[in-house]
């Protein structure tokens, strides 16, 4: 449809405003991450929108290099939390994806586990805070508290609904002729699943895995409750970055925030096509 010139003008103006509102908080954090300590805290009208003396000292500080302008030293560096976030998210994703993919295939092809779709949506409905007491007790009992594998297990369960529903829509959409041909060839159904179906689904599997990884990587509350020191994840560690001498370590926190924010944003843009499907439990396909 042909639109009028005033409409086009209005459209670009409105989108420009939306873009500014979207980007200002992100740009402010990026700017803060490269500011030296003298520009962190602002009193009065000395606010600097862009670092006057850009520096990498915030990043160096996070990884244990002492900074002459920063008198405080970190009692632990950001390395361990980054490793913890990576391990728990990757293995949590692996758990959710293997259980979710298998169950989605079982339901899509053989009608097994009819209760799963609704049970898993219900799992998503409840606030994690309302089911954490038993989980904390169980995890303490199993010696899983403050370990990356304990986090990975609960992440795997929490994101299982997304893995299951995403893979279910992919399997439902997939034409069955090829599988049937392989069956006629004399393959067992298990062989068909592992040798024919899964290889064909490589791209959807990768997208679903990235989607689930983003969700696991974004967690704060569960890690806050289930880790105390050894295996705290990036968000928990970030929230603890302050000192009695200087108060909030603005620049260091912003630098760490940037490290935490970059991977999911890149992955999210990469799997844009499947975001709607994943977030609406397959109710809407783009």
């Amino acid at each position, binding site marked *: 449809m042909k639109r009028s010139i005033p409409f086009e003008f209005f459209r670009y103006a409105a989108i420009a405003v939306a873009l500014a509102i979207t980007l200002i908080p992100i740009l402010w954090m990026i700017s803060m991450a490269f500011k030296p300590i003298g520009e962190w805290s602002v009193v*009065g009208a000395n606010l600097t929108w862009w670092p006057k003396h850009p520096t990498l000292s915030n990043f160096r500080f996070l990884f244990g290099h002492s900074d002459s302008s920063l008198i405080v030293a970190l009692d632990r560096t950001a390395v361990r939390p980054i490793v913890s976030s990576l391990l728990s998210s990757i293995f949590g994703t692996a758990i959710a994806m293997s259980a979710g993919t298998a169950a989605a295939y079982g339901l899509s092809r053989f009608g097994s586990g009819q209760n799963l779709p609704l049970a898993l949506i219900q799992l998503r409905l409840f*606030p994690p805070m309302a089911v954490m007491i038993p989980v904390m007790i169980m995890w303490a009992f199993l010696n899983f508290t403050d370990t990356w594998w304990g986090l990975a297990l609960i992440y795997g*369960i929490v994101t299982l609904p997304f893995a299951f529903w995403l893979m279910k829509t992919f399997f439902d959409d997939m034409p069955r002729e090829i599988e049937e041909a392989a069956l006629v060839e004399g393959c067992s159904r298990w062989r068909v699943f592992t040798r024919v179906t899964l290889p064909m689904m490589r791209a959807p599997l990768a997208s679903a895995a990235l989607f689930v990884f983003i969700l696991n990587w974004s967690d*704060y*509350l569960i890690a806050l409750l289930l880790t105390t020191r050894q295996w705290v994840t990036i968000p928990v560690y970030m929230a603890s970055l302050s000192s009695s001498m200087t108060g909030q370590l603005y620049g260091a926190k912003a630098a760490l925030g940037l490290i935490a924010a970059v991977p999911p944003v890149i992955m999210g843009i990469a799997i844009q096509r499947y975001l709607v499907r994943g977030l609406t439990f397959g*109710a809407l396909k783009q």
Partner: protein
Amino acid sequence: MSAASVSVPEDSVAAVAAAPRGRDEGARLGFRLTLPAQVLVLFIAAFPLLMQLYISVTDWGPLGGTGWWSAWRLWNNFANYTDLAADMRFWHALGRTGLVMLICVPAEFLLGLALATLFTGDFPGKRLFYSILLMPMMVVPAVAGYMFFMLFQSGGPVNDILSKFVGHPVTIAWLSDPNLALIAVMIADIWQWTPLMFLILLAGMVGVPEDQMKAATLLGANAWQRFTTIVLPKMKAIIIIALAIRVIENFKIFDTLYIMTGGGPGVATETISVYIYKVTTQDLIWGYVAAIALAILIVLSIVAVFAMKRMVASREVRA
């Protein structure tokens, strides 16, 4: 594999699939494939719920020295539930959660709908703008909370922008004023989740048939009429899904809020998740926490069943 064997007639494929041996094998494999998911669901649903029910009628806490299995020694005659009914801090937290939801979800919906309307049709830069506008929802919520924590400092950028508009320095202490803190927290939520509404609603708008719109234009319908009579009815189901997702997720609001204000000043931004978190980690009366959590789970389950019945009913009416 020879070419001939691939082109098996349709009915023989069906015959193989329907053969008793094949069906048994399928059922067995299906059972095995769904087993891990079933075990995980049971592991996180059935056993913990029973444990929660058990602990919720006791005064048990993790530092009391007794294991959770012997919590029955601390039986308190349902005192947790009667306490809950009289716990004004709980009811206020629940009310605050409802208030945040009542403001944030409609705001996100209307802004998302407006953005989606702007993105109909093709125009230069569309893909790039789309990708940028989606970024907030991919930012780790805790990090987004920290972004807004910085923005709303009294010497921060928000006040700086305001001072440029009013012409003299503004030093509003956003996060330490009870009313403004709640507004700041809601702004952060709207910033992060409007993109989700935008994404879902735009995907729904793509499904609105172009020829119907053209026909309506030829018949003299203006943009508003086309929107209300063609676009909105077509999108009804999608709108319900989008709203339901945000209502569910908004009810859980914790990460951004807790990083920004910690529920404070005082209890000014204490939502239900923050309240439970504080009782869990500070007061350490887990029997009481279990009672709160169970009460919420029961109410949510009733709401969910009711909502699903309504949805099924409305679907039957349409069919």
